[in-house]
């Protein structure tokens, strides 16, 4: 064997034994940051890592898992504009993370923002590989990347199911549960489906650093999270035609307003923008909120220059642990604990939302909406449908929020009271058929289901669940009226007739009063 061949053979053996790893390890890129360890005077005491953490938090493998096979995969492309917008979301996250860990944080609000904004305006045709866009981030925080990726897969697949034209609504519900099981059982690093105390998670020593320092990019992040939540109710039990029409409205809101909002105190919560899906699949809504909170915690950690690299690594590991399913094993929704990490209370009437800053289980607060009970209609204050009838609640979506109401009249009139365009989802007598109604700027209503028949025998709102209803056909209307003798003689209303009406101010309405005007400013001003 000649000299060259011997050399090549030697190199092969060395590499096979892993020698190359050691050799190459000498040539890594420089570590960024280098700030001195955090001082007690500068920052409150950092939470400590628990003594015993599972080994998966330190794994060094790629552990890439393939998604669940299904005929619905990539059906999000039935809504091409939504699909592309979601592709751009991946780019936005990855670019910001890569710049944060490569010493480019100073340009985040200018250069990075401009780059991301360009992609959001001209979204890619295919889902980019986030790992390729943020290689340095992935190299430093590989386990975090696994948590993000795997939960993003759940996001993508549930949306594919909802956008499928081949699956029935019942099949979609069933498949979404299967996807959850697949997500949850396949890895040790699934995000917990329990409601977590968001106030606690967002009150860490580093919390709000990213929001307060990089307002524009944070606005984009929360804009993505708004879209990733709001799309669920838009898609759920809506026909493909309605889904398309609804995304014209929702996509417009996303691009013109939600991406550039910098006045939010807190990230958009899933149940604030998709309350129907959150009530139906609270475990999934909670997991997505917890994932988005993990994003916020990581953003804040990376944006805190007082933290040394080692501290950042530890705090990110701790943040992953906090939202992981394993940290909350054998705990249940509704559990209350003195240790706020294990506080799993949720709002009354909304199991898909953990406790928020300054709020109580009975009262929730939203910007521009004020205090409200998530168990009651936001128009007439009467109790919402629950239990087996959960699906009967209509919703109104406008200006970035989505509210459940008790009856079609409440939906229509609440929509009329809001500014700008809105979307109404009105269930019929068939749990799988929802009528989608869109309202333009002037309040003109239109639907792609013109044959819908309405009952509106207005009386006290104590009974609006009975006298205000929508039906998929005249025969369904007749059957209902026949079964309810007190409605004898009720006139069936066409969509046009119904759309022109306006009800009286609900006699049952009571404006809830919370413990403060605005719980976020209350807390931040230290009141």
């Amino acid at each position, binding site marked *: *064997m*000649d000299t*060259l*061949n011997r050399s*090549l*053979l030697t*190199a*092969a*053996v*060395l*590499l*096979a034994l*892993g020698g*190359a*790893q050691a050799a*190459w*390890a*000498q*040539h*890594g*890129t420089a570590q960024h940051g280098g700030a001195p360890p955090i001082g007690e005077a500068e920052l409150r005491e950092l939470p400590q890592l628990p003594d015993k953490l599972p080994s998966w938090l330190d794994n*060094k*493998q*790629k*552990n*890439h*898992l*393939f998604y669940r*096979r299904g005929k619905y995969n*990539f059906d999000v*492309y039935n809504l091409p504009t939504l699909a592309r917008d979601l592709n751009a979301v991946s*780019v936005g996250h990855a*670019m910001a993370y*890569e710049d944060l860990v*490569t010493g480019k944080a100073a340009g985040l609000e200018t250069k990075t923002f401009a*780059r991301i904004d*360009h*992609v959001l305006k*001209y979204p*890619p*045709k*295919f*889902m*980019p*590989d986030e*790992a*390729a*866009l943020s*290689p*340095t981030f*992935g*190299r*430093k925080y*590989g386990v975090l990347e696994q948590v993000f990726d795997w939960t993003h897969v759940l996001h993508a697949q549930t949306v594919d199911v909802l956008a499928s034209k081949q699956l029935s609504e019942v099949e979609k519900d069933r498949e979404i549960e299967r996807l959850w099981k697949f997500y949850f059982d396949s890895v040790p690093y699934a995000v917990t489906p329990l409601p977590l105390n968001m106030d606690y998670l967002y009150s860490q020593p580093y919390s709000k650093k990213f929001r307060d320092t990089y307002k524009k990019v944070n606005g984009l992040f929360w804009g993505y999270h708004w879209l990733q939540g709001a799309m669920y109710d838009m898609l759920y039990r809506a026909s493909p035609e309605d889904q398309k029409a609804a995304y014209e409205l929702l996509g417009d809101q996303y691009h013109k307003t939600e991406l550039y909002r910098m006045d939010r105190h807190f990230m958009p919560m899933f149940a604030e923008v998709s309350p129907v899906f959150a009530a139906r699949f609270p475990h999934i809504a909670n997991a997505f909120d917890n994932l988005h909170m993990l994003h916020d915690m990581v953003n804040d950690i990376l944006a805190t220059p007082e933290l040394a690299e080692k501290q950042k690594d530890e705090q990110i590991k701790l943040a992953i642990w906090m939202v992981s399913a394993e940290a909350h094993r054998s705990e249940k929704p509704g559990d209350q604990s003195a240790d706020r990490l294990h506080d799993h209370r949720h709002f009354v009437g909304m199991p898909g939302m953990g406790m928020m800053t300054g709020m109580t289980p009975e009262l929730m607060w939203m910007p521009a909406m004020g205090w409200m009970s998530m168990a009651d209609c936001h128009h007439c204050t009467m109790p919402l449908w629950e239990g087996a009838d959960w699906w009967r609640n209509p919703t109104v979506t406008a200006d970035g929020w989505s509210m459940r109401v008790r009856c079609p009249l409440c939906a229509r009139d609440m929509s009329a009271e809001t500014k700008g365009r809105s979307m109404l989802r009105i269930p019929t007598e068939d749990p799988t058929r929802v009528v989608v109604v869109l309202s333009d700027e002037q309040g003109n209503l239109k639907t792609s289901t013109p044959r819908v028949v309405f009952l509106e025998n207005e009386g006290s709102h104590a009974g609006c669940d009975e006298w205000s209803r929508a039906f998929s056909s005249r025969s369904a209307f007749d059957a209902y009226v026949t079964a309810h003798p007190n409605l004898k003689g009720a006139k069936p209303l066409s969509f046009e007739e119904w759309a022109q009406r306006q009800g009286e101010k609900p006699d049952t309405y009571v404006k809830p009063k919370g413990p403060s005007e605005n719980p976020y400013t209350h807390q931040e001003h230290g009141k």
Partner: protein
Amino acid sequence: MKQPLIWITAMTAALLPAGAALAVDHNNVDAHRPLSFDDAESLAYREQALEFGLNLVWPRNRPLGAGLEGEYLYGFARNSHASIGFEPSIGGRAGGADTSFDPGNVSLGLFHNFNRQYGNTPAFSLRGDVFFPTGRHAQGTAFRLRGIASRQAGQYGRLHLNVDLTGNPGARSGEREFQPGLVLGYSRPIGYPTHFQTTGLAEVSVRSGEERGTGPVIGVGIGMRRQVGNRSVVDLGIQSDVAASGGAPRDRLRFIAGYSAGF
């Protein structure tokens, strides 16, 4: 010669529709798609992929030749995949004077990724292939061991070092039983930060000549992989054995076009 051409065309036609709805990522690099190096990433657990390509070869002192390369891969465990491949060819080839159709050897491979890149430690994988002697004039079962290390180079680029040891216990007299080789590959996404569909590739390789007494062959190649569907990629490449010593047979040029789909 007509029959083999029909066979190659039929194989291609059979694979094309299967791939149309399927997948992979332009950023993940497998050998022959289109250059000769692998990156250190395995298929995802439970992922399947079909990869195939056509190559046009212009060997030195030989007529033009053509070949088909096909591979099926399956992620049978976390960070591991298995593969089965075939590579029929016809016409001129660097290794011999025969130009008739050769069904080529069938190969079985195992790939395992030991670690992703973390800190400054590169991602590291091993790949082993056995080649069953199904080809014309093939003797004995050959094997190849390949060590693969991939690491970030610059912000978005990646370097991939492949070190090979090919063994052929059934080598004829005058042929080497063991042939080491080395490929240094580079991949980098093209179009960032506005386009996200294409990866550019380049390689430099050195391998031992097949015949005893011949020196090493030095090759270079460039190529690209482009996402054309949610889970499908086309690739194009050009390779050349730019230098060889001791009369080692080599290809002036090889043009490669391929398609991969994951599902």
